[in-house]
């Protein structure tokens, strides 16, 4: 039996969250594999949380931030990218593919884009299969 993928999506409270609530208003379906975590800014997602997610069995993690010149706080996406780059190095050491961690930018009205990105991401993770950290059994 094919195991259901587990995907985490960290959504910044500003544009990405607005896209997500916009999905709700328009009843645009979200892939069932996606678990949504709202954070105050993409820049808040530190390496520790990302590693925690993979440690606990996430097959993929997507961070959705605002477009750089639209960041409410100014530096969020830049800081997020730095954090992600740092995390990539560790993922590499752990033998996890880079594709399992992604960063995407949004403007507040882009509900359709968020939806299609999430679907695409889930599909890509599906192709990669379950995370080797957890294995096929879904347990550590």
């Amino acid at each position: 039996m094919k195991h259901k993928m587990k995907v985490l999506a960290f959504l910044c409270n500003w544009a990405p969250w607005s896209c997500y609530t916009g999905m709700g208003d328009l009843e645009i379906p979200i892939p069932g594999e996606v678990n949504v975590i709202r954070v105050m800014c993409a820049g808040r997602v530190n390496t520790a949380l990302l590693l925690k997610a993979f440690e606990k069995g996430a097959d993929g993690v997507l961070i959705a931030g605002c477009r750089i010149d639209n960041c409410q706080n100014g530096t969020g996406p830049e800081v997020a990218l730095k954090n992600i780059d740092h995390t990539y190095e560790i993922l590499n050491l752990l033998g996890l593919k880079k594709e399992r961690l992604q960063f995407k930018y949004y403007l507040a009205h882009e509900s359709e884009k968020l939806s299609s990105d999430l679907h695409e991401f889930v599909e890509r993770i599906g192709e990669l299969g379950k995370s080797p950290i957890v294995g096929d059994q879904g347990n550590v």
Partner: protein
Amino acid sequence: MTTESYGALIIGSKIESLKAAYDLATIGHRVLLIEEEEKLQASLEDTEILPSGARSWYAIHPLLMAVRNHPLVDIVTLSVVDEIRHSKEGFSAFIRNKPYYIDTELCCFCGRCREICPVELPGSLKKAVDCISEKGIPRTFFIDKRKNPPCQNACPLGINIQGYLALIASGKFREALDLIRESAPLTGILGRICHHPCESQCRRNEIDEPLAICSSKRFVADYELENPYHDSGTEPKERYKERIAIIGSGPAGLTAAWELIRLGYRVTIFETLPVVGGMLRTVIAGYRLPQSILDNEINALEKMGIEIIANCPIGKNKGIGSLFDEGFKAILIATGADVNKKLGLGGEDLAGVYDSIPFLKRINLGERPSIGKRAVVIGGGNAALESARTLLRLGADEVNILYRRTSEEMPGDKNELLLTMEEGIKINYLVTPIRFLGKDNQLTGVKCTHMDLGEIEPDGRGDVVTGSATVVEAMGAAKKAALSIHRYLRGKPWREIEDQDETRGDYEPLDFNTPRSFRPLMPVRGIKERKDNFGEVELGYTKEQAIKEAKRCLQCGICSECKQCEIVCQNVGAVNHSGIKKHTEYRFRVVVSPRPLAEKFVSVLPEERIFCESEFGEGRRLEESLLLGAALAGKAAAFLTSQMEVIPKDSKKLSSFKEGVKSGLFICSCNESSGNLEVMKELAKFGAGFDEVAHSEVLPSACHPDGARIVADAIEGKEITRVVLAACSCCTLDMICTACNDQRLRCKGNLFNKQGLDPSIFEMINLKNFMATRRNMDLQGVLEGGKNMIECALSRVKFQEKLPGEYGALAKTVAVIGVTLEGLTAGIDLEKMGYHVYLIDERDPLLDKNISGEDKFYASIIEDIWERINSGSIVYLPGLQMKALEGYLGNFRIEFLGADQSHLRVSAILFSGVELEKVPLTGNLLRKGFARRTLPGFHSFSPWSTGIPGIFKMMVPQENSFNKKGLPGTAAAAEVVALLRKSEIRAKNIVSQVDQDRCRGCGHCLEACPFAAIEMVGDTIEDRKSSIIEMHCQGCGTCLSVCPTGAVDTIYKTEKQIEELIEVMLR
């Protein structure tokens, strides 16, 4: 009722008005925002696209929401100012509201009203009740009500015809019948024999053929006979002790009795005959109205409690007076007038000549007189047709009707006439009898003459079936009489003046392209089967026919008042069909309007109380609109300064933050719309299974005041210390972001402001959005996902920390750096608003007192500023060059090069005409620079922002006529004061904090912080620690993502909470 009193009345809701409203309220003045349209205009979504690509609407949205959420702003939409009057206290505005028919403060935007509404407007996806705006203010629905439809106006009983047709069209037959019964009894009878004046008024007449209203009514009555259901009926609002007597059990008597018993009286009907029903039973033939139908309707009335005494003539033996003696307090005489006129012809007394009404009466009471083989009926009304068809059924071989005019003039029902002719009865037009021929006192023939069609006599002989009136008219009159009795017994005025809803618009014009369609053919029994008996001829529409016919209705009144929306909204109670236009008086001191004010208001108000900059036309850029709004606010605030309001503080804090976890789970079903109700109940049950959960329930609506009350009561009653609210609010913060909306704000407002609950104990999750994005999933999947979400929240709320409270007052000092026209006007306005102003410049531009030459306005500003400098209210510090600037909002320290007064402390700084790059930022500001937040496209758009809270830059649009009036300076002054006031009162509940034991003083956070909210403290390099400047911190959490030791954390959504969330989520 006391009149509400406001500092400023703001007319219109463009961006300028919203900005003015927000700034004025934040400065501390009560504001009433009046909008003529059904929503605030700045909620339009098609505004410009900002250079960053963001839609400007999303930049404005938080402003719109902030205005909605501000405790000092009241918004009235669909309202116009009728009149402004001078009053003792100041000025009064009289405002006229049009009703939405939906309470905008209660509507939870579940959309069920729209879903159930049967009225679809042709050519659009709109319905009679439809959504105003998905994201605007108010976020609600609106019922489009027009004048009463013509059919209803024509009905003597005022039955809501459009309403029941709409219900039939959507297959709701019982509901249709219930709706009819709100206005009239005896539905099954009316549906058969009413002369339906409604149909002749139907606007469909102008297109093809009127609706078959009467037959549709019959259909729902028959439907009930075939599909009986238990109808407990509505209890009267009150019960009165008075007994009322009604004489006569005809349609009028029965209707009056029905109305009176519904009003709460005890009613007794006295009937002379042994049978009940009056002419319904005695005159109308069974093949039109079967006795069983009549019995049924009368039974229903008796079940309601009406007492009917037959065989009891009032008059001879038992007088009316005796009824009073028996204790009746009012008597209604409803005996009808079934007296026939004699023709006045010879031979009228011969045996075999009958008056139609007594003849029909005898037959209906069971007599079967011998009538011979050939019969003639004289007349063309319903009684004539009825008599002819009755004669046929009594065994006559040949029946002739003699009518003196043509079929055109015939008063009888056209349908009845067709059925009559179908049965082989011959109609002889333009024929009238001269006299009756007889032998041995027995009729043998009639002598007739041919008529020419002449003018109809003015007295026109009507239908004699009920004497002077038709059944429905008699019933209508009886209803009125019953109401008169009620008013008489209750001591009310004879006629009540009804509040007319004058706001209703006219019908939509007829669309002559409407496809032609005709009413379905009424099924009838075959002629052979019906000719020799009194069985019913017409069989009634089938279900399919009834629906098809009802769908032909043009829905003239748009909203049909079928009240289905009221039923689906009963848990929320937002729908109110009797919305009456209101005139409300509001007191105010100044008017702010970006558009020109009507002349009638200008003439009443003194010039200095009108703040209106209308000469700049339309088509402003967003930042210019904001500037104008702020400038209007600044001017008004400078005028209003003496009377600042204090923002009402929460009087009670029911639940201050306590240690120990005892949780409550509240799931909002959004009036059973957000997801499957069973799933919601399952989720509540699932939550209740956790050890720490002391209370778990599904709320009908969390944004309803009652929802907040339920939560508060449970917290108090069960000593709950943590709450998970799974509704549509995403957070507990008072921050407003792009995704927020009316309902989410209201939910938090009701809980935290009205009920005084502490946001610290709450965890809010947007379950509605979760459900909405999973509509395509199977229920089991949704349930599993929902359980996970609930479990995440319940485990997260355990780690909740107390959010910080309010800050104290800030020093009222502002430095304006740079003497320009705008800087000077800002200085003057800041001073007017009660702030101490330091006017600083590197040079001494005020020295020659005339720096721009001939400009009159500028000259007056220079004069004004010198007055203030001389009186000491503004401190002028020329020739000072900045050496250092550090600190934070409420406490900036400016150091100057080689001056006597070497440094200055101020709460805020406004730069005017100064190159920001050259400002010597030091200390905590050293690494910041002003680059941030000056880019357009920020969600909370502020053109004055420099990126450092409390430091502003003057915004001067290029080539704009309002620059000459110094408006940019006034706008900046308003902006400065608004931020200072806001910082004093706002509880900043998203700040970061530093664990001093874990901090290594590396300074990564200082570098990363976009808001200059971190300073390094400690005297030596070993002691160096970072510290959060709460005034600047926006809670973005960037600092903690770069902290190598985990010393920094946000109070809202701590690292521990997010870790917990990830763990539970991936379990």
